[in-house]
């Protein structure tokens, strides 16, 4: 854990030296929230019926969807990106030569990305609240718990993409595929219960981890529903975590072994 914190601190020290990047990143939040606000107001009459059990407010529906999606994006891209960058600049070899364990190193290499995403999410929510979003703050702990589960359910995709980077120097487009599937089938922009969504799309959506996660997150944060009432979706998420993480971990360990066998840890 201390090793991970040391790497996160190093990432923060590195990133804060890029001042313009940090300022632009924060400014872009405002640029994102405003169009979402106005578009959601325009579409509210059409969307209200299909999102009635998730608060009924399309602006809140979209904001929670976007926040979950940026966490998914950070999850599926940060690990392969960090591994790829580490291979490219030689830091991965240097890190693997230390006594730190591989889970600590991975956590440290991506920890800053998650913290920065969390900061952006809080700012995004704050801006949305200024524009009229109503959140059940009492349910915020449950919301954070569900968000952590969403992240954990997507880590296996990141590990598989990172494994492909280790072994073959490609992510296999896994982050893009997960992002597209999550965006279109996970219920980020529209409710999967909407009548215009064909039944076969519903069926595919059941296999997208973000779908149950978002349902639970919205009901918790937007309607103040207790965790017990969203337990079926939470259990579904936990099921994804248990099933997929084993695959992701095996893939990563085997890819690392492959890279050590072929001597390609530092060859991009």
């Amino acid at each position, binding site marked *: 854990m*201390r090793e991970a914190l040391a790497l996160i601190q190093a990432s923060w020290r590195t990133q804060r030296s890029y001042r313009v990047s940090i300022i632009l990143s924060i400014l872009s939040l405002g640029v994102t929230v405003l169009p979402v606000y106005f578009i959601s107001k325009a579409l509210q009459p059409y969307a209200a019926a299909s999102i009635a059990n998730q608060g009924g407010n399309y602006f809140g529906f979209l904001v929670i969807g976007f926040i979950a999606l940026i966490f998914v994006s950070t999850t599926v891209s940060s690990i392969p990106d960090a591994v790829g960058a580490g291979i490219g600049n030689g830091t991965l070899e240097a890190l693997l030569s230390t006594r730190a364990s591989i889970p600590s190193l991975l956590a440290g290499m991506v920890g800053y990305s998650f913290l920065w995403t969390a900061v952006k999410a809080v700012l995004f929510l704050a801006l949305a609240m200024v524009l009229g979003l109503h959140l059940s703050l009492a349910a915020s702990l449950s919301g954070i718990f569900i968000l952590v589960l969403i992240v954990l359910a997507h880590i296996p995709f990141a590990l598989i993409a990172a494994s492909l980077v280790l072994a073959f120097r490609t992510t296999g487009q896994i982050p893009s595929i997960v992002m597209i599937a999550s965006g279109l089938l996970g219920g980020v922009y529209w409710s999967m219960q909407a009548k215009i969504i064909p039944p076969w799309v519903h069926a595919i959506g059941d296999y997208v981890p973000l779908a149950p996660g978002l349902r639970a997150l919205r009901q918790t944060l937007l309607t103040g529903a207790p965790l017990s009432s969203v337990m079926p979706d939470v259990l579904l998420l936990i099921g994804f975590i248990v099933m997929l993480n084993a695959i992701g971990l095996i893939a990563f360990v085997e890819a690392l072994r492959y890279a050590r066998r072929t001597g390609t840890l530092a060859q991009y």
Partner: protein
Amino acid sequence: MSGLAARDDASAAHALSDPSPAGGAARHAVVLDGISKSFPVRRTWGEMARQPTLRPRAPVLQNVSLAVAEGEFFGLLGPNGAGKTTLFKMLATLVLPDSGTATVGGYDVVGEASKVRSVLAPVIADERSLYWRLTASQNLELFAKLQGMRGAAIGKRVTEVLAIVGLSDTKEKIVAAFSSGMKQRLLIARALVAQPRVLLLDEPTRSLDPISARGFRTFLRDEISGRQGCTVLLATHSADEVLELCTRVAVLDHGRLLATGTTTSLARDLGEERYALYTRDANHPALAALVQRGIVGALAVRGDEDGWSRVEMELAGGMERASQVVAMLGEQGVVIARFERVPLPLADLIDRIVRRSAEGSSNA
């Protein structure tokens, strides 16, 4: 000595000179026993289409065995592609061997990799592996923490190693502003921060100017090996470095260990004696006659200094034979201003070992 080329790799290396660390009874810091490694050969699309099932591999290390004593400064010499870096990466647990065993500090590099990493520090990666937007001290603090150091000990050790590598004055400067030499020193400092028992240095002076390189060698000898007592394995192309620093040396070529021994024993065993004479008449028939009669090897005329030519020759038989040659030439009227023994440069020595090995392989 002349039988070197005909022997197989391991036996040749062992037969040439004592393969065990100087002193014989010393404890071993590093032991390699029959280490082999090959990597897949990258093929073109056409080759893959023609022979899809073929999986060609290129040998990088072939049955390499050697032992390095604790506290020893050991040189690894060889041309590009000899397998030096792969060997180091294997010791650093970054590459797995195909066969054979390797131990560092008594720990197996495959089965006890984390323990190996607790006693060994490699300086294999180049300067890109530093965190360029962090200061020198921040880089070292990071790696001290990754090596398991805690609390006030970190700051103390960072200050120490920065002083050791001569970067105390620039510890708050970001690495991006460092010169290549300073980055190289920081890489060494990073390796030293956890007080390793074994240090692997892969061409550490390659990006240093000659003056910095000399200072760096002094630092390695006096501080790292002398005061810190580290076992150092140094892979280099520089004969100067090996002669100045190492007690023993191994010569690798195409993954094969061609020779191990002290630098002086290598020169004695493999380097045919070479002499230089200074004469006004490099084309005197008496000189050519020495070659024709097989008394000396080929002559090489090098340079001209105020009308005096330097003629180099290979001459077996020691000083006794050399004095006879001088007498013979004098009788023939060859005017000799100076006659001296020329030590065989280590680079020539390696070249000779490699060439003999290649000749041996083709004869076999």
